């Protein structure tokens, strides 16, 4: 393309616009968010699972001679609590429970709730009505109250925390999945599949589910954060992990009384919660960008 002038108006405009478009393309590299989230989570998992290899001190060993030692002291990187137990090892070991809840409780409720929502949304009619009334009933109770009641029934323990969450948490997924399914049911691709004579189960699993799964998966990240906080809250109220098992929530509750003098007992476990929570948030945001580009 021959040019009469080196800098015609269109050339200048093009250069300016291209620089701007380049900027847009660069911000489109949001994968960074997803990668950071996964990295953070990876670090947390490695540190927590590999705790025995990383810390010498036992999380439950009492050391009455060295109570309330501040962080950065020799032998106790993050200090000790009122019984002389090493804070760092308690945080790493304590994370096992909360992480286990994040993965174990969330995945079960994700699957169960998704199935219920899919069935309710697809079949409609009285099945839908019945299932959604049950969902509504669950939603009518403040979440924490219901969990407390269930744990009061079953007795406070780590396993019962799982059970309580399994019983109550699936409803959010059911609602989301049902709404998605109801919309998806009317889409062209579903009508086409039915017209081809595909069985209902096949249509649900191989057509509707892959197209709607992104909503529940992204929500599961948010839910994971919620479950960790829930486990910590129950620990805080004395209804979760029982002493001497370390857990982030119970540690915060213990540290409450010493907050004025030894802030590290209550504060640091909370930071651990925030770290893992932010990791899940970033993963959720990153997934949202990848699975549904253009929504941001």
């Amino acid at each position, binding site marked *: 393309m021959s040019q009469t002038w080196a800098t015609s108006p269109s050339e200048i405009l093009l250069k300016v616009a291209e620089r701007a478009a380049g900027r847009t393309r660069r911000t489109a590299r949001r994968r960074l968010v997803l990668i950071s989230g996964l990295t953070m989570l990876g670090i947390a998992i490695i540190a927590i699972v590999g705790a025995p290899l990383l810390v010498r001190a036992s999380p439950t060993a009492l050391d009455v001679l060295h109570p309330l030692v501040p962080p950065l002291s020799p032998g106790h990187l993050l200090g000790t609590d009122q019984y002389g137990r090493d804070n760092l090892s308690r945080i790493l070991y304590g994370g096992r429970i909360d992480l286990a809840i994040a993965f174990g409780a969330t995945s079960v409720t994700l699957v169960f709730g998704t199935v219920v929502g899919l069935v309710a949304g697809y079949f409609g009619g009285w099945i839908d009505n019945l299932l959604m009334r049950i969902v*509504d*009933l669950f939603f009518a109770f403040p979440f924490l*109250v219901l969990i407390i009641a269930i744990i009061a029934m079953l007795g406070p323990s780590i396993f019962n925390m799982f059970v309580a969450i399994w019983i109550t948490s699936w409803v959010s997924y059911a609602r989301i999945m049902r709404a998605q399914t109801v919309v998806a049911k009317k889409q062209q691709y579903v009508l086409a599949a039915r017209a081809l004579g595909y069985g209902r189960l096949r249509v649900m699993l191989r057509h509707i589910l892959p197209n709607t799964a992104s909503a529940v998966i992204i929500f599961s990240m948010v839910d994971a954060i919620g479950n960790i906080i829930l486990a*910590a809250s129950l620990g805080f109220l004395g209804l979760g992990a029982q002493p001497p098992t370390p857990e982030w929530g119970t540690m915060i509750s213990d540290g409450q009384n010493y907050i004025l003098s030894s802030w590290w007992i209550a504060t640091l476990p909370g930071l651990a919660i925030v770290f893992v929570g932010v990791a899940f948030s970033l993963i959720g945001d990153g997934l949202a960008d990848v699975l549904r580009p253009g929504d941001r």
Partner: protein
Amino acid sequence: MSRFGNLPRRLVHLVVLLFGITLVTFFLLRLIPGDPALAILGSSYTHARATAIDISLGLNKPIWTQYGLFMDRLFHGSLGYSFFYNSPATTVILQHVPPTLFLVVYSAVLAAVISLPLGFISGLRRGGIVDQSTRVFFTISFAMPAFWLGIILLLVFSVHIQAFPISGFGSGFIGHLYYLFLPALTIALGFSTVLVRSLRASTIATMQAEFVDTARMKGISRARVLRRHVFRNAVLAVVAVYGVNLAYLISGTVLVENVFSLPGLGQLLVNSVSDRDYPVVQGVALLFAVLIVAINLLTDITQASLDPRVGQEIGE
């Protein structure tokens, strides 16, 4: 055509729901192990006294009869008698309502004040400084457990800076505002995360709508376009989110009341569960549930009044 044409049907649903709630509350409680007589009498437990208490609580009758009696009493406005507080359960509960109610409303208002401007501006200037810093801030605060955040705020603002009181409800309206600021802020921050995100997404979507172009085309000021067209529509999506999360907020009060030593329903509930004070636990759980149902109804009505299309939908 009535905008609220759906309302009668919704009310019927509501009544059914309330019945379900009373049923669940009642039976859930009966399933909690532990002998109320034991809890009430403590060290002065004798078999004779325990039996007397069982009879007065009606525990010696079959369970369906108990439910019938419970519902009968309920319709006459009574929730039973609390042995622990030595007064009707209703009185005890009502005494604890003000702090919780104040806290809930305060948090809701604070949350709106924080999230509406931030969410709107974040949506208008995507990628701008407000948007980015808001997102970073709320991503971090969302991962904070409410009780931990409360403790941190207490530590910083009440202990070190001494700007706010450590605990208690205070007296007088201004007193309440002052004493409850930190707890309300704690709850509001958690609440705001979802609101900001929702409003931001809603604003972005609304800005792309063609009616915004029509409004601009008329030659009215940009401020008017933003106020009467963009905001007015963007905020609709948030009302639903607001309503749902307000319900979650109520459970948040349970934890926050603990940290800030507030004599509200949350404290009452936790204590009564360990005391096995059945009438009070039942009453509080029922009250919470009714409150949530009421909030949902209020949300629906607000939506219907803001958006004329809502009343037209059949079913839910």
